[in-house]
């Protein structure tokens, strides 16, 4: 049950292969990289958690503007601090893997973009999203008129029921027609 010490049991390995889109080598590599993130005393614990700060030092996540959101979405901790166990980490890699389906990718993408976790993308979420995408520097940010224009354009395109927010099914509908989404929503160790 769970993963302990530095070895994955054969049974766990085959279960993980059944439950994720990852191959055996990918799971073993993930285990290796994850245990590198843990402190010495944590390595012996069952279901050890790696804190968000350490996970975001992974080179694959370091330059990602959504790294904190990703950690929080996949985290199962009660304190909602974004810490991940190895199984959460596997869930993350599975959703971002090459063979994952469009449905699961769009589901998690929606949750990542939903900054306030209320189940819909409203104007505040969209504004935060745009600011994440344009970088941190001030001159790169869009002016408030541009921002308003952009958000109203997006809502016009995606908000079918005209309630001022984008819900999961509207989001999935937009994403499913996109040719670039599946190939760019990928993280590989």
């Amino acid at each position, binding site marked *: 049950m769970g993963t302990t010490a530095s070895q994955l049991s054969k049974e766990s390995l085959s279960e993980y*292969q059944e*439950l994720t889109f990852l191959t055996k080598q990918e799971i073993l590599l993930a285990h290796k990289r994850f245990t590198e993130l843990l402190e010495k005393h944590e390595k012996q614990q069952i279901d050890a958690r790696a804190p968000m700060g350490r996970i975001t030092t992974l080179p694959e996540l*370091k330059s*990602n503007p959504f790294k904190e959101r990703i950690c929080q979405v996949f985290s199962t901790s009660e304190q909602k601090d974004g810490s991940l166990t190895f199984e959460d980490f596997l869930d993350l890699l599975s959703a971002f893997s090459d063979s994952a389906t469009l449905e699961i990718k769009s589901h998690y993408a929606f949750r990542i973009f939903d900054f306030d976790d209320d189940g819909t993308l409203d104007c505040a979420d969209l504004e935060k999203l745009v600011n994440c995408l344009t970088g941190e520097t001030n001159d790169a940010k*869009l002016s408030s008129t541009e921002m308003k224009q952009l958000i109203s354009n997006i809502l016009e395109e995606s908000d079918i029921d005209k309630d001022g927010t984008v819900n999961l099914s509207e989001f999935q509908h937009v994403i499913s*027609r996109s040719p*670039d989404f599946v190939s760019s929503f990928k993280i590989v160790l």
Partner: protein
Amino acid sequence: MSTAGEQDADLSLQEEHESKTHRTKRRDGERQKKKRRNERRKGGTRPETSEEDDDEEEDSDKDVVRPECLSPEELEKLKEAVDERKKLIQSLRGKPWPMKKKLVTLRESQEFVEKYEGALGKGKGRKLYAYKVLMTKKWMKFQRDFENFKTACIPWEMKIKEIESHFGSSVASYFIFLRWMYGINMILFGLTFGLVMVPEALMGRPYGSMPRKTVPRAEEASAMDFAVLWDFGGYAQYSVLFYGYYNNQRTVGWLKFRMPLSYFLVGVGTVAYSYMVVIRTMARNANESGVGDDNSFNFSWKMFTSWDYLIGNAETADNKFASITTSFKEAILEEQESHKDDNIHLTRFLRVLANFLVLCCLAGSGYLIYFVVRRSQKFALDGLENHTWWERNEVNMVMSLLGMFCPMLFDVISTLENYHPRVALQWQLGRIFALFLGNLYTFIIALMDEINLKRKEEKVVKFNITMWEASLYNGTVSENSTAPPVTIHPADVPRGPCWETMVGQEFVKLIVSDMQVTFLTILIGDFGRAIIVRFLNYCWCWDLEAGIPSYAEFDISGNVLGLIFNQGMIWMGAFYAPGLVGLNVLRLLTSMYFQCWAVMACNVPHERVFKASRSNNFYMGLLLLVLFLSLLPPDCNLIHLQWHSKRLILCNRLAIYYLNTVSKGYQQANLDLKKKMKMVSMNFS
């Protein structure tokens, strides 16, 4: 009294519950339990309640899995339940649940399936059913292991990942395409090598046994010279590499291997395999990437799909941020400007002018090639030794240089047109395609003349040979018959030119010079430029790195097209020179390593990154077209009606397969539209 009955019922229920947790394998054990229960009932209670008890027993019986006492409908239901659980297990990976929940569900379902599956087989069929189940499990495990093995076998995965993290997925897509081409060429090479070259080398008549396999006496002295070998003359010409080496003997060697048939079938197999692979990839791409040219979600897509999660490098990430910001601002501006339209006339005039200039370029390059090929024929008649290296290799060099400079020219001309970058790219690709096609066909037409010339020569020589042999024969017979007939060394036999080998040679020379030009371009264009910018920057007045000329960006479309046309030439020439495919494999291998090094060392990530991912199918379509066009000339030469009609049937089947897959995509789009409409109507009601 009823309490006793109830107690009995409780007991029996308890027993049933226990038996549920055991595998019901032994029929005898079950029968015994049933007997015991019946006896207990008969023994303990009043006769009036026995019917009720019987009813209870029947009810509880339904819960117990005892295959031989289940009716067919219940068996069906159980089977359905088991199948449903199996489907659930398969679908677990696609569910967005946390791992713990998935694990619990998996273990529950697996227990359920194990428990009831073994019991489902009935009577005699039971062992077979259990055997089938076992085999299915083993097969699935084997499939999974095989998938793992296949993924591990894919070469260059780390290299491509590094490129992806530095340059994003669009540059990496070129390398993925290159790797795919390499795979196809390896398979074609395996076919050709295994079924054509090796049998001929091992079992065919050896070198020197026949006139067509021997270097003529006159050329023997220079046959080993490097210069001659580099031109694919001398010993290289009279080898398994070229068509002329292959004898028309029906079977060769102790295996009675049918050589000519094998040669022909390998040719057909190459064509069929290439078509199949290209169309299959196109169909898969069409299915995945959605349908139609949709501009209705422009802003949403920019928002939700523009970040490339593969980026792992801070500099690339900064570039990406900048490009996203620019694209947002541009899109907003474009939307505002699309409401005003000024100066259409000027734009239209400029676009017409640009197209006219491009046509002039194309015509000019076609004429240049024709002129150069004619000149080389004249040189050949004069004897090749009298001319310089340039004059001997003029045709190949001119074609490669045209292929290098004309696209740059088209790029400059397209600044007149003022299109959106994606549209401009499509125009650019179309023009480069027209250029390559024009060049290739001009080349072939010019070759045709040479081929006809050689065929006439061949007829004349054949006639001369028969005359010569007749004279020889007459000469020996006129003497005493005890003298042995004169044997002639094959090298001395006069023979005509083999036009197929000549065509093969031309193609091989073309490919080699193309390869040289590509590598030189990268070395000088990218590497040289990077060195100059880096070192001159210290003593130059303006910042060379930030302004002009700065480092080069990787030219995706140019490289992809180069690859596609290279493959077209391979397909065209492979029938005449079986060694060509092997040469191409070597070329792709060196290309992979060389370009991987070059892109990491000399290129910078694109400033304007708009994903040309829908052009994946555009490139595949181009490849298909090139495949079709490049196989036309050899087919015209084969001229068998049967062969043509078989090819037509093959074409039809492949077209049906592709259209089928595309129609599935359209069906999906229809469903999406219906869903959307339902949502809208629900909200209004």
